[in-house]
């Protein structure tokens, strides 16, 4: 191990999704100081954007709320939101880290009363709902936000609207002078828990997601089904708000494909079982067709697939659809070959859901120069010596992410204790 002059026992966790939160809490509860840095205005990551999550189809609050409580109780965790790591120098045991922060324009004394949101007039695309709807320029990131604090879009900060927003706050929490900043940290270990993003569906040109309103992705489907989503949880067609009676779920949309993500994203098959269940719970007479190459229900979740398979209104078609065409009435028409019957089909649907995979958040352009070794797909290479938690290390579900985060906490503890 490299000799380092200034050693630190603090652990830095980059990314505040379920993995980063878990790593932070585990390390803190074992008696270590932790700094948790999250780029967005709230912790929770992608799990917060789910309607429900397998295996037990719980609401994301169950997993997140308990961890938020653990963070609040711990005196050892410092959370920085709207913050990202600008540079990391040093070696295990002693790193000098620069953290860059973006302005939130709202101070910690915000009570989340929402008066600022009511004063705002500008609307911006809502990242929480993957841009399916808009939010006021002063908004709460989502109902489960941590910290429970509003955020103001920089676009209105220096305007008359910004001043109206400031005036509306009854506790004086709005701070229009907030600005970008940075600070230095000394830490002994870095846990990378930067997670994933949905594979960009516009790259799947044959599936025409960009052109056709009624072709959506699986992450959009989670939002459509969520009570706090753009449709208040009603699954409807984006084009006309009609209730879809015939829904296609297309597996491996961009995964296991050398032209896109060469690997299996591992969770999309089960996510689609969930989506079949969402549709069938809401729409009694709906027909759901699942197009698959082969269903990969990992681990103990085969029983979930079997449960969905018992539903006579869910049909499984062994085929990777070749393309989607535009049909009458904004209906996407799914075309391909049924590989069990050799029948070449062209089947119209009210709604098509693409099971897009998980791409490493570290992939494509955002890899910081100091980043640990990445594999061909942007996941953190385990042999590189870097400590990775959750999907930053490869496609995992929540329970596997939590296991990997606990392991990461242990590795970090060992690194700062050496």
């Amino acid at each position: 191990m490299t000799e380092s002059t200034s050693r630190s026992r603090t652990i830095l966790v980059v990314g505040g999704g379920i993995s980063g939160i878990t790593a932070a809490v585990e390390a803190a509860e074992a008696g270590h100081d932790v700094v948790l840095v999250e780029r967005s205005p709230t912790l929770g990551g992608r799990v917060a954007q789910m309607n429900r999550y397998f295996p037990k189809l719980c609401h994301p609050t169950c997993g997140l709320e308990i961890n938020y409580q653990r963070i609040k109780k711990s005196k050892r965790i410092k959370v920085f939101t709207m913050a990202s790591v600008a540079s990391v120098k040093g070696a295990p045991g002693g790193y000098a880290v620069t953290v860059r922060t973006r302005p939130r324009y709202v101070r910690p004394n915000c009570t989340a009363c929402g008066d600022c949101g009511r004063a705002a007039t500008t609307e911006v695309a809502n990242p929480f709902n993957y841009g399916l709807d808009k939010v006021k320029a002063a908004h709460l990131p989502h109902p489960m936000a941590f910290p429970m604090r509003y955020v103001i879009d920089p676009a209105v900060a220096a305007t008359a609207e910004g001043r109206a927003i400031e005036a509306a706050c009854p506790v004086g929490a709005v701070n229009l002078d907030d600005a970008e900043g940075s600070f230095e940290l000394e830490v002994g270990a870095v846990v990378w828990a930067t997670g994933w993003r949905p594979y960009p569906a516009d790259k799947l040109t044959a599936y025409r997601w960009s052109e056709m309103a009624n072709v959506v992705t699986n992450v959009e489907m989670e939002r459509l089904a969520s009570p706090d989503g753009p449709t208040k949880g009603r699954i409807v067609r984006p084009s006309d708000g009609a209730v879809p009676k015939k829904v296609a779920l297309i597996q491996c949309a961009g995964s296991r494909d050398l032209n896109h993500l060469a690997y299996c994203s591992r969770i999309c098959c089960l996510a689609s079982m969930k989506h079949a269940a969402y549709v069938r719970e809401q729409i009694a007479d709906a027909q759901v067709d699942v197009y698959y190459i082969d269903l990969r229900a990992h681990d103990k979740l085969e029983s979930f697939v079997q449960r969905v398979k018992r539903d006579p209104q869910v049909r499984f078609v062994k085929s990777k659809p070749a393309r989607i065409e535009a049909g009458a009435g904004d209906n996407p028409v799914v075309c391909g070959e049924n590989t069990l019957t050799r029948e070449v089909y062209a089947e119209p649907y009210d709604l098509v859901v693409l099971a897009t995979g998980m791409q490493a958040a570290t992939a494509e352009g955002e890899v910081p120069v100091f980043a640990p070794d990445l594999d061909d797909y942007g996941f953190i290479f385990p042999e590189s010596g870097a400590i990775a938690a959750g999907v930053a290390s490869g496609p995992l579900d929540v329970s596997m992410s939590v296991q990997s985060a606990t392991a990461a906490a242990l590795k970090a503890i060992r690194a700062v204790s050496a």
Partner: protein
Amino acid sequence: MSHVPTPTQTYDLSFARWVYGHVDGGDRLALCMQCGTCSGSCPLGPQMDFGPRKLFMMIRAGLKDQVLGSNTIWNCVSCYNCVVRCPRQVPVKHILQSLATVAVREGYPGARETDNARFAKAFWWSAAKYGRTDERLVTAKFYFSYGLSKGYRKSMANLAIAKGMVKARRMHLGLPHKCKNAGELKLILARAAEIEARHGDAS
């Protein structure tokens, strides 16, 4: 009595391995995961007896005669839909066309009788003779490969189209176009045939 069935065929990979090693693009064929994208993408898919996906499985199953006698290898129009979409980057089109060549070389009955094979032959005749393809001669050669009366009927049925093409200056009247040095072309082609024969022997 045992109820356990006894297979009548053993698993024989010799044909598949030969294809992997000798057919253009065959080295990637083992990567095929039977997803069906190729057969679903193919504009001729519904006309094909098997379609590329099933044909590839038949290669693995050692069904040499059915593969080389199939109309799938002759129906490919080189649109490349399958090639750009195949998630395993299997060069589907190259494999089909290369198999068609093998079918001809191996004298598979029917291989020379398909529309595509007849057209390919007419096309090649003109290209080899003149160094150019002459629309009229290629078409005539193609039509009359079906016999005199059928060829005549086909020609008459398409006369209006031919007239329209002449009018639009898409088909010319008069002597066939020729390349400048047809003699040299012949030498090049003879040499190519020699190389191909050697390649065929090695196969």
